[in-house]
């Protein structure tokens, strides 16, 4: 964040609000879901920002809104310094080439009636990227890049395993020759052994083509293998953001600490010794978020102040911001299980 050139992606105060149909007469009593509420992030060219949070926290909506696939209520999204939020659909079309997405569900995100060749050719055709006669060769090249045999071209998505389908999805995203890719939980539907294959592929492609990633996931252990910067989201807002090292070594927000402590260690001895912060309950409804700090209903260190006063995202170290009244300072007295130490159960 200290570089002098403008970041590839700069999102400022992004808001995505959905109106729910009212329950009263003639649609009165309408409620608003603030899926994303004042979110700001920046990603430098060639870097990866990991966006982490539980289901329903707004992380996927954020990814989609950045690509203008979800309606934006407010704020700006700048890709290569150009604000996307004010562009018309026609103005946006050439820019869409620069930004692509890989979806979570490798089964639902590929058209079952299209062959792999049709699926991967489509972006090339839509954006008129290669002369007609070079397109088949280009598709073959893309498939090789993602580790699929050329014989895959004429086959249909159902003939492939989950991991291979995700490779097809990645080839499709690459076909547009993008600068920026939103990876929306690209490995959460896959076996661990296949996850690491796909993650390695994504990293190799990033280095090879200088790609910039927004990596959306709910698993902090996976995010740490992929990201330079990490942002943790809760109920539509970022609660902590830092470099990977800072976030994993000195997490400040109790929610980040809880997420870290939920990651299982593949070692029974460490597991037995660990003191976990297991969050009770689930994410509250975004229709009616808790007062004060949104997290106070599940927070192990919540105090009276947290129920009334919403903390703002404040800087507590170089490039490290957290929105907790107690972040950066000494932990409050009433703290029962000290979350900061529970995940330091080093072997």
């Amino acid at each position, binding site marked *: 964040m200290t570089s002098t050139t403008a970041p590839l992606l700069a999102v400022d105060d992004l808001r995505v609000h959905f109106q729910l149909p009212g329950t009263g007469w003639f649609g009165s009593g309408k409620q608003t879901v603030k899926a994303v509420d004042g979110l700001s992030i920046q990603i430098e060219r060639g870097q990866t920002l990991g966006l982490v949070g539980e289901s329903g926290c707004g992380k996927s909506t954020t990814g989609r809104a950045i690509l203008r696939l979800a309606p934006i209520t407010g704020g700006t999204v700048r890709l290569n310094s150009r604000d996307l939020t004010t562009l018309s659909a026609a103005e946006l079309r050439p820019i869409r080439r620069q930004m692509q997405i890989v979806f979570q569900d490798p089964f639902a995100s590929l058209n079952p009636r299209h062959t792999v060749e049709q699926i991967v050719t489509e972006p090339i055709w839509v954006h008129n990227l290669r002369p007609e006669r070079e397109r088949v060769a280009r598709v073959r090249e893309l498939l090789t890049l993602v580790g699929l045999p050329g014989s895959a071209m004429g086959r249909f998505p159902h003939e492939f395993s989950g991991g291979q389908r995700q490779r097809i999805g990645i080839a499709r995203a690459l076909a547009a020759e993008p600068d920026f890719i939103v990876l929306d939980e690209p490995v959460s539907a896959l076996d661990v052994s296949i996850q690491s294959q796909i993650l*390695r592929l994504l990293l190799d492609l990033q280095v090879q083509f200088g790609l910039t990633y927004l990596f959306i996931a709910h698993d902090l252990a996976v995010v*740490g*293998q992929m990201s330079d910067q990490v942002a943790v989201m809760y109920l539509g807002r970022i609660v902590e953001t830092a470099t990977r090292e800072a976030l994993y070594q000195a997490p400040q927000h109790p929610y980040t600490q*809880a997420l870290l402590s939920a990651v299982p260690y593949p070692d029974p001895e460490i597991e037995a010794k660990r003191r976990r912060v297991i969050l009770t309950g689930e994410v509250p409804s975004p229709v009616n978020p808790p007062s004060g700090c949104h997290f106070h209903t599940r927070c192990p260190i919540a105090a009276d102040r947290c129920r009334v006063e919403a903390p703002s995202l404040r800087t507590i170290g170089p490039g490290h911001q957290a929105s907790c009244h107690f972040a950066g300072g000494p932990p409050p007295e009433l703290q029962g299980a000290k979350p900061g130490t529970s995940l330091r159960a080093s*072997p």
Partner: protein
Amino acid sequence: MRSSSDVSNASGNSTSTVGPVLSVRDLRVEFDTRRGRVRAVDGVSFTLNAGETLGLVGESGCGKTDTALSLLRSVPAPGKIDGGSIEFEGRDLLSISERDMNRLRGKRIALIPQDPLTALNPVMTVGDHIVEVLDIHLGMRGETARSRAADLLSRVGIPEPRKRLDAYPHQLSGGMRQRVMIALAISCEPAILIADEPTTALDATVQAQILELLDEIKRETGMALLLITHNLGIVAGHCNRVAVMYCGRIAETASAGDLFRHPHHRYTAGLLACVPRLDRQGKGIFFTIPGTPPELTNLPPGCAFASRCDAVTDHCRSERPNLAHTNGSAVPGSTDHLMACWNPAAKASSDAGADHQTSARMAVAYGRAHDKSDA
């Protein structure tokens, strides 16, 4: 009544004084497909003791779910159980009548299926689901059944259980649905609970809650738990013993402590190294098992893992290894650490801690370790 001489039950845990509640021997499940006959489960043997958790781990298609469904005799067509025995409460489940089997399903042996959304009937309320089971198996009806159902919901940590009885599945979150599935499964206090990937569709925080809940219920009721997963990391803190499956066979089985400290089979070591860890963080630091499992219709003559193994020998390609004790004795069953590998990972380095070094070395060798930051 049950001989426990065969196959391991000596986990070294406090539960080893009790005989096994379940012993599966040489189980085989076949599927007739257009591309030929496929043996999805090929000679799997294991025992399950009361109060014990056995982790059954492997990739998609390795036969772990078919193994579990065999215990309920519910392998989906065209699959069928083709051989072996499943001894439970003094009877071989493979030879009893369908009627007797129905009395066991959901009552003595219960299943938490993989996908809690599709497993619940969308037009039945949560209460209907539970009351139905209580009626069928325990003859419980009316208000008695409803209050028992509410007790069960509160037992699995669902707030306002009375109100939730009238909720439909779609009104609940994924974690809540999974809790309902657990409430259903434990409603008749089964001797064995099979949990098939119970947390795969859930967030990490909810996953931790669900696993804690299963542990708690197990401690209270003394049931045996068969925990099926593709992620070795998940089972580490929650299993007494672990069996790793590959291509329909058990590749390695041991007590959890032993398996995680000294993985012998190369596949186990690989699976273990694949698990993302917080103490080994850094961009690009990860280990990959290359390739995918071979098609079951076209298994190689030797070890099924040979094509993906980085320590493959000629022997591995020509002869299939059988499950044997890790100290080299040919007879399986005498002790608890068994593996089917000709060139095991822990062969050269049997002292403690060596495996951690091995996996760390693998991580460095395979990843781009330029910004490695160990905890």
